[in-house]
């Protein structure tokens, strides 16, 4: 054990004991909680506890994944059971504070479940429908600890993996361990992570980058930002281990601008690491030097593509590059780089700490470990679940998600993000497995599962997805730029009941051109939603075209910015604002303060 870690562990253990010596109230704030009104609950709790004169710790934590129960308040009083309260508004706060915190008796009628103890009249947390089958690895700390509190993370086993890697292993051994664990990329492509790292490891460049991708523009997926919102240290630890294994010098956490809480929490966690010798010139007191910083990007879905991401890190338009050269040879600022999804990296600390064999024992033969699914749409229990591979979609939707809240039949799932497809209810018995799903033409992608019941129109949803693809096309490859616009036009007239003959064939031709003529997945997969919808719900399209559609489709109001780089009303910013500006342009000295990384 390194000296630094020994000292941190001792301090963390002491702090954890201190924390548990007082009543501890955890409120799920962050993005998810805030959207459910948790800020008001938090204010009420703080106010009421202060007025009652009770000594208690009130912590802001990230979402536990039980989003349907938010605002979720988690209370433990020393010597008493830990109890979760669901949907706590400011109005129920006084009763909970007085009865549970002050008198130590859980308020059963308002409670959701108990944790690690039995309370008469309450289920245990693991007995909740949404918690069954769950195995929590990447989400192990979600909702349990304060996201940016280093000691709480360490007290729950954090940084033991990094300590083991630095103290007992060498980089090659770490890579071998990851290869043995069978960890595959969670961003959609499912590429073996150990193999990816070994590409970077073989490059002798002194400056190499590990990029952690939290662009997460996928509508329907919210697991990456949730990890940063709930437990940024697990990503940081994984990133340092990846850096050590691949001999990298810098890590960059790439986050979409907006929704400040995951960004703030990640930055605070990074500061804590620097202050405690976990990052910097001597990581944990060893000779390994590693830096991590947060890089923000504007709204762009394509920025999640690995080469476009590198352009955005460099501060340019997020447009994909030609490959080869591949990022492992020529990445950010021309340096060797390795791009990993947030979820992938978040598994690494536990794999190192508990061993490859443990991880490989979870899941199916070739899809090891767990998948993090985001449930939303027509579902009783929306939120995040982390389940081992091998479960069926039906189990996830019906057992964990509870099916449609009104008991209507599930019609289809939209999976794999806006470039993914529709999975009809008849295929719900499909097993969660990278290869099985790919073979069946389905995509798990980044984990978004949007459930739609029998009252939803396939044609309408597909138009929404194509409108997204059209707006997010970066414009570099014309088959994608023009193809998505053309497809949207066709879908618009189908929805309006003014379809032309041969429109479906026309879309297929456009899709074929996009597939053949686009640099990145955005264009290559852009026809996917239409294609998969036609395969399973072709009747609905033909009925709509024939004017006998049974489901009403309302006109769609979309964003006004229709093409990247062009402002509303076809007026480009350069044309409208630049004219008065050029006259004032003063020459700038070239060379000074040139954009490049601090250490590059």
């Amino acid at each position, binding site marked *: 054990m390194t000296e630094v870690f020994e000292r941190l562990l001792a301090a963390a253990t002491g702090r954890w004991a201190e924390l548990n010596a007082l009543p501890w109230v955890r409120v799920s704030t962050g993005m998810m909680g805030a959207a459910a009104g948790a800020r008001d609950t938090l204010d009420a709790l703080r106010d009421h506890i202060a007025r009652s004169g009770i000594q208690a710790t009130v912590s802001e934590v990230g979402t536990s994944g039980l989003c349907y129960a938010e605002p979720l308040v988690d209370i433990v009083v020393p010597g008493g059971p830990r109890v979760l309260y669901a949907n706590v508004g400011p109005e129920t706060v006084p009763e909970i504070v007085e009865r549970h915190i002050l008198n130590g008796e859980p308020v059963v009628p308002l409670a959701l479940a108990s944790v690690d103890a039995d309370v008469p009249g309450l289920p245990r947390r693991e007995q909740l429908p949404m918690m069954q089958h769950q195995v929590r690895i990447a989400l192990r700390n979600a909702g349990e600890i304060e996201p940016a509190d280093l000691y709480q993370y360490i007290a729950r086993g954090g940084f033991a993996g990094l300590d083991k890697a630095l103290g007992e292993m060498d980089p090659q051994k770490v890579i071998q361990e990851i290869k043995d664990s069978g960890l595959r990329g969670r961003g959609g492509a499912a590429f073996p992570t150990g193999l990816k790292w070994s590409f970077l490891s073989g490059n002798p460049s002194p400056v190499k980058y590990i990029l952690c991708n939290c662009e997460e523009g996928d509508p329907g997926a919210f697991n990456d930002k949730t990890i940063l919102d709930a437990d940024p240290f697990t990503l940081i630890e994984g990133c340092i281990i990846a850096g050590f294994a691949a001999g990298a010098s810098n890590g960059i956490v790439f986050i979409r601008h907006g929704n400040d809480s995951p960004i703030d929490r990640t930055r605070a966690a990074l500061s804590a690491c620097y202050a405690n010798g976990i990052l910097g010139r001597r990581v944990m007191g060893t000779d390994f030097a590693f830096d991590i910083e947060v890089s923000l990007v504007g709204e762009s879905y394509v920025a999640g593509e690995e080469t476009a991401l590198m352009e955005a890190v460099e501060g340019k338009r997020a447009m994909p590059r030609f490959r080869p050269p591949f990022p492992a040879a020529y990445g950010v600022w021309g340096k060797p780089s390795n791009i990993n999804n947030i979820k992938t990296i978040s598994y690494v600390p536990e794999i190192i700490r508990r061993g490859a064999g443990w991880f490989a024992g979870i899941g199916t033969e070739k899809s090891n470990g767990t998948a993090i699914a985001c449930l939303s749409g027509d579902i009783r229990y929306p939120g995040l679940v982390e389940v081992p591979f091998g479960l069926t979609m039906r189990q996830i939707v019906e057992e964990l998600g509870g099916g449609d809240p009104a008991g209507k039949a599930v019609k289809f799932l939209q999976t794999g993000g806006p470039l993914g497809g529709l999975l009809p209810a008849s295929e719900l018995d499909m097993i969660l497995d990278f290869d099985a799903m790919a073979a069946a033409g389905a995509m798990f992608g980044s984990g978004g599962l949007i459930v739609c019941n029998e009252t939803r129109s396939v044609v309408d949803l597909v138009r929404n997805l194509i409108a997204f693809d059209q707006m997010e096309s970066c414009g570099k490859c014309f088959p994608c730029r023009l193809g998505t616009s053309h497809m949207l036009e066709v879908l618009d007239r189908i929805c309006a009941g003014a379809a032309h003959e041969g429109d479906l064939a026309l879309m297929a031709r456009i899709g074929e051109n996009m597939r053949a003529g686009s640099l990145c997945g955005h264009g290559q997969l852009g026809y996917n939603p239409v294609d998969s919808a036609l395969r399973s719900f072709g009747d609905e399209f033909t009925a709509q075209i024939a004017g006998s559609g049974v489901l009403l489709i309302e006109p769609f109001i979309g964003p006004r910015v229709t093409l990247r780089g062009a402002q509303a009303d076809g007026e480009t910013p350069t044309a*409208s604002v630049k004219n008065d500006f050029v006259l004032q342009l003063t020459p700038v000295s070239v060379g000074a303060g040139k954009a490049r990384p601090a250490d590059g």
Partner: protein
Amino acid sequence: MTSKPNAPASETSEHDSDEAREAIRLRARRAIARQPARTVTILSSLLAAQDELGWLPSEAIAEVAGRNSATANTVWGIASFYPNFRFTEPNRHKVELCWGPTCHVLGAQVVLRGLLPHLGLAAEGETDDGAISLKLNTCLGVCAHAPAMSFDDELSGHMDLELAIRLVEHLKAEDEEAKPIRDAADASPGAEAVQDRAESEPADAPSPPDPGADETTADPVEPTDD
């Protein structure tokens, strides 16, 4: 009824005053210099400037270009790629509505169809009363609480039309309540002096600003919190 590609004439003239321009330039420069990330790029500088100003006037573009040794054209090229940047002054409050598939399925369009006439808009854009800038967002990231909206960057889930209208009206009411306080605050120089000039006019005279109002509102003095 549609949103305005350019700010109203009165605001433009205020914005064009040398003092106001200089104040904006200063704020942009400070925001760009104070970025927490060690790696400074054109994009990171643009985000910092817009976070500070709420939009990107040409002064901000010039500052970003100067800081990054780039031409104005290069900076415009990058800024115009990302739809979160805007080149006209926003109204006082930013309201965003998510049109991602989950929100779409659960009724975002119903909210939007009702909210647009309530705001007097035909599409996303600025209301005539200077209160609300409405923007459609591709995904606000809280699909579990769909349909989602955000009001001055505060997320709000499980939206329906009635709640959306109530929250919009709440934002407008904040302006009314805040008026006397802000008027008093404007007696001493503050960071909000430029940004909130529209509100700093006397409450009983909401019509075109008179030249006299400009002097208090365009005060370029910055808070010295660094």
